[in-house]
């Protein structure tokens, strides 16, 4: 663990990313304290530029506080990103683990299934799914999860395929351990690094996807999210740029931070790469 941190810390970008993420997390937690009112509340004159009439980041077309919207939307965006990624990981890891461990026909069947999903453009599928189940936070999360799992399956399968023939797995096999135990205690922990790296990117992608759905009017109307704010602000971008620019920056920063952290994790969890950065000679 200490070694991990040492390597992680060496990556300046990752540290910055982590700091931004911490700030974002803090915003999500403190939103009800900083803005102790509903982000939907119409608190003043519409279309106030940032800094005027008590609106730090301006007001929107109904006189709602953009800053409050961003703060409260943080929670929603992180929720969507986190939950949908968790769900996608659950599907992806299960299928990938089974495919990679079982190999053969089972693997073939699962991979055909995965390919099948990758043949459908994921954004199109997400749009269709949300439209079908009517837009709500749960349908959005489900849709994002459904379109995001195939890469996880591929990565996990590849890891499992290579790990299952590793000698320590064979040793466990020879010791008579059960399949489940082998998958859970021998293989999975060793496949975690790429999964962790991938999942940080998936959270980022999920946030982008949610915002794109909101942009098309397929967001949850009861939850203030960044995507919703951009969607509602895009039509007035020339009248009130702050309505879409600030939530855009919020998305940008979050995705950026997640990427930086993901990259840092990759370096820290992948000693070979760490070496390349000139840390250790062979």
């Amino acid at each position: 663990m200490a070694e991990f941190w040492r390597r992680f810390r060496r990556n300046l970008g990752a540290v910055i990313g982590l700091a931004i993420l911490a700030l974002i997390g803090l915003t999500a937690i403190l939103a009800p304290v900083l803005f102790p009112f509903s982000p939907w509340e119409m608190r003043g004159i519409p279309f106030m530029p940032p800094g005027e009439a008590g609106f730090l980041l301006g007001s929107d077309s109904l006189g709602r506080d953009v800053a409050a919207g961003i703060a409260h939307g943080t929670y929603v965006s992180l929720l969507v990103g986190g939950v949908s990624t968790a769900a996608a990981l659950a599907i992806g890891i299960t299928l990938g683990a089974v495919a990679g461990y079982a190999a053969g026909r089972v693997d073939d069947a699962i991979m055909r299934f995965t390919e099948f999903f990758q043949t459908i453009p994921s954004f199109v599928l997400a749009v269709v799914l949300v439209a079908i189940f009517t837009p709500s936070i749960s349908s959005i999360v489900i849709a994002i999860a459904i379109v995001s799992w195939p890469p996880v399956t591929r990565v996990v399968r590849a890891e499992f395929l290579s790990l299952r023939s590793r000698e320590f797995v064979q040793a466990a096999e020879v010791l008579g351990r059960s399949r489940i135990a082998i998958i859970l205690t021998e293989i999975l922990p060793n496949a975690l690094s790429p999964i962790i790296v991938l999942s940080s990117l998936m959270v980022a992608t999920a946030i982008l996807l949610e915002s794109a759905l909101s942009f098309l009017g397929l967001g949850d109307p009861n939850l203030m999210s960044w995507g919703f704010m951009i969607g509602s602000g895009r039509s007035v971008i020339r009248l009130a740029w702050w309505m879409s620019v600030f939530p855009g920056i919020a998305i940008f920063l979050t995705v950026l931070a997640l990427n930086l952290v993901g990259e840092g994790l990759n370096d820290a969890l992948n000693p070979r790469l760490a070496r390349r950065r000139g840390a250790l000679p062979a």
Partner: protein
Amino acid sequence: MSLLAIEGLTIALPPGGERAHAIEDVSLALDPGEILCVVGESGSGKSMTASAVMGLVPEGLPVVAGRIVFEGTDLLRLPPEDMRELRGRRLGMVFQEPMTALNPLMTVGEQIAEVFRVHGETGDVRGRVLRLLEDVRLPDPPALLGAYPFRLSGGQRQRVMIAMALALGPSVLIADEPTTALDVTTQMQILRLIRQLQQDKGTGVLFITHDFGVVAEIADRVAVMQRGRVVEQGPAGRVLNAPEHPYTRALIDAVPHGRARAAATGGGEVLRLQAVRKTFRRGGGLFRRGTTVVAVKDAEFTLAKGETLGLVGESGSGKSTLARCVVRLVEPDGGTIAFHGTDLRRLSRGAMKPYRRRIQIVFQDPYASLNPRRKIGDIIAEGPVTHGVPRPEAMARVRELLRLVQLDEGAIDRYPHEFSGGQRQRIGLARALALDPELLIADEPVSALDVSVQAQVLALLDDIRHRLGLTMLFITHDLRVAAQVCDRIAVMQRGEIVELGDTAQVFGSPRHAYTRELLDAIPGKHWMPPARAA
């Protein structure tokens, strides 16, 4: 004056490493037409020395002191462009891994021709390439020109590498473990090729190896390196037969000696294999047939209690597959594997479980055989716990086993990466022994280890085997090791056991041609390590 003289060369390591210098005060001299073997264990700095001559030392490792004088010029002071021009033209190099040392996307012809091209040689490039291919005894050179590396075997690729290295007739050839990754028979061919080309062209060869057999086979002079320093240097005959430095002596002592041993007899039958077959299918899918490879063909042998049977053969001969069939890591296609009369092949996963504790296996790769995410204690206790031993009891057994394999008890709470290769191999052994098996399968247990460590592990294995009365199936490609360890030997070729007999008989009067070929290919076979001989 020497062709190449390394004088007091010192290359630093980044601060914070286990030692300050990769190589320290290394001085070597190579004369024209001479083969200088630099021998040493991993980490001794022998490869770094070779890289330094080529000017290919990785960035970040500064040359602190010394000179490398080649044909009167100090290479370390040469501008990069001049150094580049020297590489390939005056200095040729061959690497260890023939499988990865060729660009997979370029044809053999292109890659050899590139040497001419980048050094401004025009004219009949194609013809010269063809001649080179002939020189290295590759079959059908015109067809090879357009072939991609993946079509070639390891030995063929190494020949291509040699052709490239010698294309412009360099005066120095540096060969960095060029035969380590090859099978013995191929190794011998390559060694002979290098020797012959060197003699034909009068090239000076700087030959890096860890194998004293190879040294005995080709070296004119020998330099022994240890932890970055040259500890002994001299003519091959003198160093091999009358080593002066204790380290050299230790190394030569550790070389397995092929002394045949008396066959242990009298035990009952533990394992009987009959007509075991295994065929692998590669690729293929719903609509196409893959290629099939017969890995094991009608293998038969019996193993008596307390006996060690050696399974020898080159890579791809099916020896590992056969061993894995016994522990059901590979499902054989047919035949019987009778363990005390019970055909293991017919058992379900559940029914197999009781037999699991009676048959254990030790693997080849000390790095891959331990789960890097688990503590040593858990790794060793895993077997007993799986078979119902309460955890405290299992941990007590772990301590006992650690003592048995000569490791500190503190290892329990540490992770595999904190141990050296030899130590890990002992941990792997402890894990296998934790279940008190009757039959131990050792799959190349020492082939990834340095020679000194190898000797230790083999000694330990021998000791434990006697103390616990283990029956053992020992897989190896190294005939010297087999001769030292095994009571009986089974020789495998292309999936078939072509010869099976007592060790003395197999080594002394081999019946099968392939066995004879193998024996003939043992490098330095005429050389007997002096300490043993004495």
